[in-house]
């Protein structure tokens, strides 16, 4: 697979490690890079150390996964060393995912990590289970616009904005981010969800509810990407329920220029490389010359 440039980032292939997956340490990130990812996104990093929610923090269901990690992170000041190692030890671009409670905090974190030269920043305004962060912000176009603009103002690398599907109109939130200078929209973060152990009556997650990922959300993500592609002028990065190359192609045809893969790492640590190779084979077999050729293809099948 040839290198490809998406939203200002030179990816080795279109399959990127999603935020929060094997993303806590420089070593784990570079391990994922070596295992075939085209790019890697760090765990979301915030302004202060955060322990996250009590366990159980992730459960596998038959048709997906539920998680509520609660944005555990050691803060940008301690994470910058991990980011440095990830950047040094990986031959693929490293994208720093960051979060905060407001524009100032986002700026503080971005500036704090800027020195380690991430290839881009991904703004997490979409985590569904961290009060005051993530989706609490991402449901409000004005906040998203202000935060995106503030971060774009202080960093000299592309800014990607990752959206939540738990809104009435994801396109308007995406538009706000683009208006404020986002180079790409990443969609989607997990979908708000909950499971209950009927024998004890307790919710299965320590945080009571969390975010649904995996197979279950792919049709939701595909539709979000489809709508965002139709409306926006920046590349869309598709995330949600991708575990096979077929899933990646589906997302790309819906409009994604590249994809991110999260929960499927459960199935195999090498899943990203496997997907990337599968995409190549599909393109070749079907006579397409590049990924770009099929980005948004479904919009042209009418």
């Amino acid at each position, binding site marked *: 697979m040839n290198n490809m440039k998406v939203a200002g980032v030179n990816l080795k292939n279109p399959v990127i490690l999603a935020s929060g997956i*094997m993303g806590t340490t420089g070593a784990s990130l570079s391990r994922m890079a070596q295992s075939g990812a085209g790019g890697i996104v760090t765990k979301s990093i915030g302004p202060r150390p955060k322990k996250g929610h*009590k366990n159980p923090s992730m459960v596998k269901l038959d048709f997906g996964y539920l998680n509520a990690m609660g944005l555990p992170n050691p803060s940008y000041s*301690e994470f910058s060393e991990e980011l440095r190692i990830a950047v040094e030890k990986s031959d693929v671009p490293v994208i720093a995912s960051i979060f905060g409670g407001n524009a100032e905090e986002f700026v503080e974190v971005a500036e704090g990590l800027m020195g380690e030269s991430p290839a881009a920043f991904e703004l997490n305004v979409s985590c569904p289970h961290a009060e005051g962060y993530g989706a609490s912000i991402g449901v409000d176009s004005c906040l998203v616009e202000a935060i995106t603009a503030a971060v774009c103002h202080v960093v000299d690398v592309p800014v990607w904005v990752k959206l939540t599907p738990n809104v009435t109109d994801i396109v308007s939130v995406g538009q706000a981010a683009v208006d404020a200078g986002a180079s790409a929209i990443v969609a989607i973060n997990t979908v708000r969800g909950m499971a209950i152990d009927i024998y004890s009556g307790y919710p299965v997650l320590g945080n009571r509810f969390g975010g649904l990922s995996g197979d279950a959300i792919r049709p939701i993500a595909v539709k979000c990407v489809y709508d965002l592609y139709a409306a926006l002028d920046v590349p869309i990065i598709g995330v949600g329920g991708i575990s096979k190359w077929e899933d990646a192609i589906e997302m790309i045809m819906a409009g994604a220029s590249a994809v991110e893969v999260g929960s499927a790492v459960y199935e195999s640590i090498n899943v990203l490389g496997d997907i990337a190779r599968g995409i190549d084979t599909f393109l070749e077999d079907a006579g397409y010359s590049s990924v770009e050729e099929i980005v948004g293809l479904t919009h042209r099948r009418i």
Partner: protein
Amino acid sequence: MIPIYSKIIEVIEETPSTRTFLFDVEFSDALPGQFAMVWVHGVDEVPMGISYKNGVTVQKVGDATSRMFELSEGDFMGLRGPFGNGFTLPSPNEKILIIAGGVGSAPLAPLAEEAKNIGADVDIFLGSRCRDELLFRDRFNKTGNLLIATDDGSEGKCGFVTDLLLDVDLGEYHRIHVCGPEIMMYRVFRILQDKNIHENAEFSMHRYFKCGIGVCGACCMDKLGLRVCRDGPVFNGKLLEDSEFGQYARGPTGGKYKF
């Protein structure tokens, strides 16, 4: 897989600080060294080595374990597992050494029993603070030659379990299996590494687990990014060369603390 609602059918006071909880649910295919995630409803879910097919042996250290110590027969916990990779099982007639410190006996007692069943020759070095805290002494006694060390000298050699290593020819063992406090395991590792036989040894590591299923990365060790919950918890000594082992670990935030 959501945790299975499991009834406590027996609570055994193993030592003053450890209790075994036996359940009405069995991990019938668990291998020695694998662990379960034990959910104390409303409190937390924590990793525990599988010490019996249907049980875990718990040291009281904090929130979840304290709450467990308030539970008794007829109460419930949530269980899921078995997770992770267990110890390498010996072949018949192989000779192995088991080195257990404190609650590190939990995953090693089933290994000793399985090894004996297979027909291997088992030596055990068991260490603890004091005589009363020697965990699974009887189980080990039945499976092989047991040597004991206690910090206060109340039984066996006075000192650390590592001191027992000085008196034997470690090259004799086909494999050495270690579990206990990290400082103790690291001492063993250094001794073996000096003799360049650390590749014959397996260490069962502890790190802070969040997902417990190999996705989140919370438990990863430097420099290879190995997941203790999925690539481990049992690691060959070779994989631990030039790692964070014995130096530092990461807590709930992902921030480091030193040993």
